[in-house]
């Protein structure tokens, strides 16, 4: 059973376009993290959200945590080729040392 479902699994867009990817669960999480992974490398943390309804911005990336803390979205404005990568969401619970990872959103930005 996959705790976190990410959609779409694969997305290809032209440079300059906007995109949104989603991370959904039936479980409530105390925190949710987004990582980006490039080929041959390990995931790198982009952001952590902990409050329902929280919105965080990282340059052209906007992350939102759902009000019920069950889902999250990542919006990229004016995508660049450097945004290409696998975006992984991971949910955590207080008192639990493990993160549950989704399968990822593979984003390809075409020049």
């Amino acid at each position: 059973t996959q705790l976190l479902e990410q959609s779409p699994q694969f997305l290809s867009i032209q440079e300059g376009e906007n995109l949104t990817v989603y991370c959904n669960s039936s479980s409530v999480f105390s925190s949710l993290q987004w990582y980006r992974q490039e080929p041959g490398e390990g995931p790198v943390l982009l952001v952590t959200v902990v409050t329902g309804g929280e919105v965080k911005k990282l340059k052209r990336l906007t992350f939102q945590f759902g009000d019920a803390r069950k889902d999250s979205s990542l919006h990229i404005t004016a995508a660049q080729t450097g945004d290409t990568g696998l975006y992984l969401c991971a949910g955590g619970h207080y008192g639990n040392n493990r993160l549950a990872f989704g399968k990822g959103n593979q984003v390809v930005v075409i020049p």
Partner: protein
Amino acid sequence: GAGVSQSPSNKVTEKGKDVELRCDPISGHTALYWYRQSLGQGLEFLIYFQGNSAPDKSGLPSDRFSAERTGGSVSTLTIQRTQQEDSAVYLCASSPNPGTDTQYFGPGTRLTVL
């Protein structure tokens, strides 16, 4: 300082052989995690070490898998009698604190079992 390092970066082995994968965490990080990432799959938790506490082995898929962490630093993941389904990228991560703190990942070891 240096990030998390893993060795080897690639390992090709024959079915039935044993393999050892090494992880050097960031100095001072008390928490260390091993994950497995198969093609098209998310990160599958394998095992977690925190300081001198007993490790959380609940993610190990079979008794062919084991791991140890010596001196609270370097960790070795051992897979005995490898099977083709063990082929995957094995990722190690360390964290300064347990729980949902940031995990810093190494580049992974790509294991191919022929």
